């Protein structure tokens, strides 16, 4: 891997004398400092939004829009954080998301849901997502196929399957119990935002407070050391890709609720957005370090950016140029921030 991807070279550092830095004096962990840089970028963006959009930007309603937008991507990004922390990648999430929305909204599923309730549709989406993830996992962990290729294949195949099932048509959701359960607000906040919040918190605990999470970091940081410590690396990878598939299923349910339609085009190109959010958030592509908080902020940055652009009614070509520049600027800002606070 190239130099810039491993910012923390083995710091030759005396075990008895710790690296003296202002951040340790402040009692902040490395992860916190990196996240601070991100928060700064997000705040700057919000400032721009406020200056240019005024109340149209700075309103509770707009906040809810941004959060809703962030939710679908965000849930998948949580799963992706685990995958990338193991040093892998999952390019298939967008396409699997599309497949789950299609499968969960077929006439057959909706009819069954009329009988047994929304749980049928949700169960269908989650199972399909999980299954696709597990197939990825088997191919990667036990077939030793590089994650990039395995999940790229899944991307193509799942899209094809979704087209077959949907016969390339958009399937409208009419199932009332599903709609009443997942659409609309709860305590003034859209339900899908609640789901995102729950998934994010669960993801945080899973990564930082459970055996599963610690093993994820270990597998990504040093697979050989993890193996020697008795971790079943292959099985763990299987679980992690299964988890990513599952989050794609959850996102599928959310998207169905939000757009009211299942389509094989759902989730098109989502993978790049998701990975970008995770990586901008500070999770290392080479594995061994993942941050859920960073991922959430990363997702929010992208959602806010879209929002600010549209509020300012900017031409879409100019938007793209600006978007490219802003992403780079945000990452540079974050780095500078981290560097300054440690020197």
């Amino acid at each position, binding site marked *: 891997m190239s130099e810039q991807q491993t910012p923390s070279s083995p710091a030759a550092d005396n075990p008895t004398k710790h690296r003296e830095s202002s951040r340790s004096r402040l009692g902040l962990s490395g992860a916190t400092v990196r996240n601070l840089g991100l928060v700064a970028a997000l705040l700057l963006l919000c400032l721009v939004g406020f200056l240019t959009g005024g109340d149209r930007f700075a309103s509770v309603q707009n906040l809810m829009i941004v959060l809703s*937008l962030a939710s679908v991507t965000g849930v998948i990004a949580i799963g992706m954080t685990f995958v990338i922390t193991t040093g892998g990648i999952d390019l298939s999430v967008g396409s699997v998301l599309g497949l789950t929305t299609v499968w969960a909204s077929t006439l057959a599923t909706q009819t069954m849901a009329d009988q047994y309730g929304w749980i049928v549709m949700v169960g269908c989406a989650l199972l399909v997502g999980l299954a696709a993830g597990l197939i990825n996992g088997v191919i990667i962990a036990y077939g030793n196929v590089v994650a990039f290729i395995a999940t790229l294949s899944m991307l193509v195949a799942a899209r094809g399957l979704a087209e077959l099932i949907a016969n*390339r048509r958009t399937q409208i959701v009419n199932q009332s119990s599903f709609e009443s359960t997942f659409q609309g607000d709860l305590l003034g906040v859209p339900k899908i935002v609640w789901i995102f919040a729950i998934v994010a918190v669960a993801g945080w605990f899973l990564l930082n407070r459970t055996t599963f999470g610690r093993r994820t970091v270990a597998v990504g940081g040093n697979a050989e050391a993890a193996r020697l410590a008795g971790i079943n690396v292959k099985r763990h990878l299987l679980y992690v890709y299964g988890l990513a598939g599952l989050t794609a299923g959850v996102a599928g349910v959310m998207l169905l609720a939000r*757009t009211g339609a299942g*389509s094989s085009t*759902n*989730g098109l190109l989502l993978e790049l957005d998701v990975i970008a959010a995770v990586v901008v958030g500070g999770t290392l592509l080479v594995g061994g370090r993942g941050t859920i908080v960073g991922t959430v902020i990363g997702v929010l940055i992208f959602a806010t950016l879209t929002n600010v652009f*549209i509020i300012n009614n900017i031409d879409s070509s100019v938007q793209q140029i600006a978007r490219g520049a802003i992403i780079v600027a945000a990452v540079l800002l974050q780095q500078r921030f981290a560097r300054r606070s440690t020197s």
Partner: protein
Amino acid sequence: VSNEPAEEEGSDSEEMSSEEGSGGTMNDEPGETVTIGFSAPAADHGWMGAITSAAEDAAADYEDVELRVAEGTNDVNVQISQIETFIADGVDAIVLLPFDGAALTDVATEAMEAGIPVVNVDREFSSPFAARSTVLGDNYGMGVSAGTYICEQLGDQPDAVVAEIQGIASLPLTQDRSQGFEDALADCGLDVDNQVAAEFTVQSGEQVTANLLQAAPEIDAIWNHDDDQGVGVLQAIENAGRDEFFMVGGAGSLDVMEHIQSGDTVLEATVVYPSTQAADGIKLARLIAQEKNLGDLASSTVPRTVQLYAPVVTADNVDQFMDIGFRS
């Protein structure tokens, strides 16, 4: 299944779609078997999916047509290669909906030079020698129709706020639609106040609309280029609980027509952009290859250009159009 396009729901004897006139039953008589190569962009949005499905269905209805469908692709390099393969295979005719008309012109010309008639669908080639016949939608006209309709409704309010939700902004057809829209609005002194670009998908439609509604707190009219992304657009409008404006759609999906009919949404009208173009293309290609003619025409051969009309569907006339609406 109800997912079949409405157009195909008719009985077998009414094969020809309305644009071609009530087809000569004579033309439906099986002739010598012809192989038709079909290539279109990736089915990454509802309309394009409907196009491909309609083409496949149209071919399936003729026992004398063998359709060879290339994998939908948005890579002109791959699409050129597909046409080259068709040429090498010596198909009898090619129906080509190019991802980019200009980019496929050379290879289509090559096919024509090799004696294989090419029927160009939807996105026009840059040379008249590249196609034997062309079935065109009218993208500019679509924008004009939408703009004119909005002018009719709002012409007396020069300050009216008009928003536009484009499809994929980088496609020339999107630019044509927007141009037509702008020109028509200019006629009555209106202009586009907010413009956003979606990607022809439900998800993107929902996303940009949610933001658009926030950006423009008061809107009088919205034109949405594509009814498939319109599913998401409508959902976003519903989610936001907004109804102070009316909306005009584009393409003419069955779903949208049902909404227009029932009047349960802000959707008042849509501009038809037929998804039957490729099916028409297949039919024309078959006739050309079999050296037949369109039934009702006096001239002895299939015409060079068939340009489809982009009518506005409103609650008043929706019944007429229900049968060409596609299930997006």
